């Protein structure tokens, strides 16, 4: 089991019953858990409505910023990043209001 925290904000939490913080345990699997696997797992286990507003193809939809331990996922390898125990992975829908 791989315990991590998954968070949603900026409106992305509205796709998951308005719950921002999810402490989850990813099940053991033969290969390493990468972000690409996590996205599918989240779609199946956390997203409650309109999954097309979270995933488009195999990645997050435009306008969602992904943070791994407070750093932009692009700095960490994006889809290829190998998830570590206690990682905090955040999906932020960017805001446009003013």
């Amino acid at each position: 089991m791989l315990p991590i925290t998954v968070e949603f904000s900026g409106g992305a939490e509205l796709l998951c019953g308005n719950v921002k913080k999810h402490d989850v345990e990813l099940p053991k699997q033969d290969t390493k858990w990468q972000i690409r696997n996590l996205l599918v797992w989240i779609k199946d286990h956390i997203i409650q409505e309109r999954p097309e507003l979270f995933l488009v193809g195999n990645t997050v939809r435009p306008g969602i910023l992904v943070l791994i331990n407070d750093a932009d996922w692009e700095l960490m390898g994006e889809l290829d990043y190998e998830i570590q125990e206690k990682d905090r992975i955040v999906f932020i829908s960017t805001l446009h209001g003013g």
Partner: protein
Amino acid sequence: SVDPVSRLSKNDIERYSRQLILPEFGVKGQMKLQSTSVLIVGAGGLGCPAAVYLAAAGIGRLGVVDYDEVELSNLHRQILHTSDRVGISKSLSIVRSCQRLNSRVEYVPYHLQLSSDNAMDIISRYDIVLDATDNVATRYLLNDACVMAGKPLVSGSALRFEGQLTVYNCSGGPCYRCLFPQPPPPETVTNCAEGGVIGVVPGIIGSMQALEAIKIGSGIGTSYSQRMLLFDALDGTFRCVKLRPRSQACVVCGEQPTVTQLIDYVQFCGAAATDKEQELKVL
């Protein structure tokens, strides 16, 4: 693009004394600030606090762009407007309020919608631009125009109980398109009319925009190039995250840009550059 200030008047010294005595700011910082011009695009929940603190600090010139008029539903967050100005131009309303606080600033109200036709001309007259708008199309337009004109863009946004702040196109950092090469699907975009907002949230983010503009203008420099502030007012937390660097492949700020003049941003985003339609839907 303001005439450089080379000495402070006696009135200036008294008015700004509390910031002049800060060693990190000082007379030098004050003179730089008074030689700096800032353009605020959007005279709403972000634009009001940003404008008033820039005016108070003694920015040289302050331009304010907004096509809209004051409405009663603005007043829970847009603190420079007043009940008796409902119906008048927001950019003019901001200028009038700031003028009463500090008439030593040069104010330029623009009662118009920023567009691909007028953006380069207006932006070229300013040193720093603040994105205080409320829609995706204008955010891409402002980004591209600031990259093309070489101006730092202090970007704020707020919705519901949350706010975000970052500085684009500054100190070698990324632009908006480096982070978001593709616009979001229109159905995922919520504005303050539809989603609501606690008024003091844009108050805090707009004040932070003023702070970063003051730091850039006075020579201290910004803390938010390639960094983003995330504010959650419900649990009272601020988080500062590290962003990706400037992208060499960026179509506007990269090595071989393909977007070299402003485009049709309404078409690009598939969404109008106003929140008027949605407002009608809600009311």
